[in-house]
């Protein structure tokens, strides 16, 4: 008890910010921000299955047999993540999956860049080959890194305001 009390006294201002209600509000913002990203990304890829498949094929990483399942399934994975983030259900699990997915995307874009292939990442629809001058690999990787930071926050601070998780825990 005594040692716990002492530790409690040593809580720094930083810890209070990271663990306090302000942090839970920030967590809510991170959750909703990420939900918008996944929702937008998913919806943009649903309309044309052939286009979604081609966006995957253009990376020249997956064998032809996996191009369609990935191109068709990925947008629905993204939409499921968006819905779960809006609800705040299983926030940590969803954040872990989000981060893993974003790391995969960053790896894919880096690989394409390193191999000198010119494509649009197809992150928010579109995709496929573009001319050499129209690649935006730096922006795409930076953008995904930003989303990765939001996911990382939610992995370490999954307790957020207005979430199903909080309601279930009460």
């Amino acid at each position, binding site marked *: 008890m005594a040692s716990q009390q002492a530790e409690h006294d040593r809580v720094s201002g930083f810890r209070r910010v990271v663990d306090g209600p302000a942090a839970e509000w920030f967590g809510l913002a991170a959750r909703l921000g990420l939900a918008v990203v996944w929702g937008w990304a998913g919806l943009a890829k649903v309309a*044309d*299955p052939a286009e*979604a498949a081609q966006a995957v094929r253009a990376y020249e990483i997956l064998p032809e047999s996996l191009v369609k399942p990935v191109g068709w399934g990925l947008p*629905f994975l993204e939409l499921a993540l968006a819905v779960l983030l809006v609800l705040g259900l299983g926030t940590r699990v969803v954040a872990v999956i989000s981060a893993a997915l974003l790391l995969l995307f960053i790896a894919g874009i880096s690989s394409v860049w390193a191999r000198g292939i010119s494509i649009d990442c197809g992150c928010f629809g*579109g995709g496929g080959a573009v001319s050499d001058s129209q690649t935006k690999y730096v922006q795409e990787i930076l953008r995904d890194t930003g989303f990765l930071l939001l996911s990382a926050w939610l992995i370490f601070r999954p307790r957020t305001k207005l979430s199903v998780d909080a309601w279930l825990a009460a």
Partner: protein
Amino acid sequence: MSDKNQEGKRSARERMLEERAEQEARAKRKKKLVVGGAVVAVIAAAVVIGVVVQNQRSKPETPTAAPAGTIGDKNLIIPVGAANAPSTLTVYEDPRCPACGAFERTFSPTIDQLEDAGKVFVNYHIVSFIDRSLGGNGSKYGANALGCAQNAGHFRDYHDVLYRNQPGETEDTFGTKQTLIDLGKQVPGLDNAEFRSCVDTNRFGGWVSAVQQDFDKSGFKSTPTVLLNGQPIYPKKGDEQISTDNLVKWVDEANQGKQLGTPGSHGQSPAPTSTAAEPNTSPTP
């Protein structure tokens, strides 16, 4: 003795507390597992449903209906000229692609002449990927209208009219079906109820998608892709830049000592006698 008794009591109480704490922790862990499991199940279900739904929604790679006279194992290719011509010119074009427009306005009189002389058999792949990056329907509807013109036996003329009236790449003029129908009036014999309804109902939409999916898998990345007997000649053949003169020269070289083909009429107007290209007014790539 009383000490011992108290000790026993305390430990009993502690044990009870410990047990309760453990129970609570276990319940919490269980709850987390249930929530985590449910979340993973929801995501897995979404992906499976997604793959099934998209599989049903996607258009087949082998079209159910193709324009009359198309060739190739899935009828994806529109042929122009003599099938027995000694050389084959393969052209991949998107109706909205400005570089294709520039290519056509420069080379179509020459290509028409080569066709009519029985020197080349031209295989057109009308692709439609510009809509993906710029939005709109101009590539798809334009490709369908070209399919309709092929179906009516007027592909070559309508194809030339379309490229002469090509809008800027970002303008989706061909996304308006009426525009495509109106352009059909410039081709003698094409403007009839059959053609209008074919364009209006996007009759060969499935075929257009199949042609595009074939292009997706081809490994060619841009349009126009132009091959003479399988060898790329646009923008260069080896070190030599393409020009109308060079194109004729390359074809003649390839045809040396071979019998020329016998072109039939495909309802198209004869090639112009001059190889003079159209003025290139549209923006070049």
